[in-house]
């Protein structure tokens, strides 16, 4: 047999136990020798079949529990220390519950503002900024009829620095809403309007909430007449506040 010397070490090679220099020589030989490569394949198949067949017996749950109990370290606390331990655990539990609630609320709130910021940026990056192009609120508002399950009012912009560019549909938390784009001194500002009861907002998003620090835009949100408003843009906080004021005045 031509490959007799190789064959004798084939298992050791497949077990990854040959010295590095021999491994390399084997790699080259096995790749170029049909006889050894088919032999190697057969042996690999056997190893794989042994692995599959070998995973056969699992301990019973009751036996596992028994063993875990017997291995687990036994607490060696005196009665006094036991009370202290229980009290410490209670404190840890309460602090943990409060912390997780706080962190959950914070992260949920942050997520809402992040999604609003994403909607705003995606729209600005889009080739068609708005679906209804009009500076006339009496044109933009009727465009949403039949598209969203609520009605809303747009503020009168006369004597203000803001101008309406148009509107488009938006979706937040799988809920349809109105997305209006305004302009102020070449800054685009998005105003989102959603039905409050359709959104499942975290507790941190309340009346007059401001965006968390990790959202770089200026954002304000409030609830009015069963609707949830978000105003976001890179305009100054004063400009955002002015637009918010116009909306609030119009809706009240």
């Amino acid at each position, binding site marked *: 047999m031509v490959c007799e010397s190789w064959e004798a070490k084939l298992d050791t090679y497949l077990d990854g136990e040959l010295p590095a220099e021999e491994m390399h020589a084997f790699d080259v030989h096995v790749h170029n020798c049909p006889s050894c490569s088919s032999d190697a394949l057969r042996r690999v198949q*056997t190893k794989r079949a042994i692995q599959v067949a070998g995973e056969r017996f699992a*301990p019973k749950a009751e036996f596992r529990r028994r063993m875990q109990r017997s291995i687990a370290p036994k607490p060696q606390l005196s009665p006094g220390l036991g009370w202290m331990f229980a009290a410490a655990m209670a404190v840890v539990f309460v602090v943990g519950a409060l912390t997780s609630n706080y962190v959950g609320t914070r992260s949920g709130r942050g997520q809402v503002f992040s999604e609003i910021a994403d909607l705003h940026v995606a729209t600005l990056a889009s080739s068609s900024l708005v679906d209804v192009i009009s500076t006339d609120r009496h044109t933009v508002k009727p465009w949403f009829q039949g598209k969203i399950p609520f009605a809303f009012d747009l503020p009168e912009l006369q004597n203000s620095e803001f101008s309406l560019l148009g509107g488009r549909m938006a979706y937040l938390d799988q809920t349809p809403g109105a997305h209006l784009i305004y302009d102020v001194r070449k800054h685009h500002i998005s105003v989102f309007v959603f039905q409050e009861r359709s959104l499942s907002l975290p507790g941190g998003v309340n009346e007059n909430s401001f965006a968390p620090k990790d959202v770089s835009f200026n954002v304000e949100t409030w609830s009015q007449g069963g609707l949830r408003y978000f105003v976001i843009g890179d305009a100054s906080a004063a400009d955002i506040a002015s637009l918010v004021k116009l909306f609030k005045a119009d809706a009240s």
Partner: protein
Amino acid sequence: MYLARLSAQSDSFEELALPLFDRLYNFAHWLTRNREEAEDLVQETYAKALKGFSSFRLGTNFRAWMFRILRNTFLTSRTGLKATLTLSLDSEEEPELPAECDTPETVLIERSNRRLMQIAIEDLPVHFREILLLCDLEEMSYQEIAETLSIPIGTVMSRLSRARKTLRKSLQIQLRRG
């Protein structure tokens, strides 16, 4: 002070030993071929290991140490003694293999017959069964196997080779029987 040291030791033993529980049980069941005996063997292994844990040097191979305790415990059990007395551990006899056409492995893979392989492993003498499982199932290195079985690496290689040939022969016989 002593209790604190014992407790710390127990903590670290639990951390090291519990993840091996399923692997040790499977191996024990393959050796004993019986659930109750496998449970007794695992229980005794853990008891001995916990007792001797102070002599275990952290940083050395804990897995090989645990498998060695289990295997030595098995060898001194009634089933283990019976299994080892029925054969010669260092038999150099190698089975004669017939000419090949369809190899047992390809037929085995084609049929996905896991059961055939299990029977073939089960039929192996215990010293072949254990070395094959340690190498191909537990994926131990030759060094780990040598530590576990307390044999030189050269013996690991020759015994593995004979175990594989015997398994192959057993599979061929099974396949001929159909």
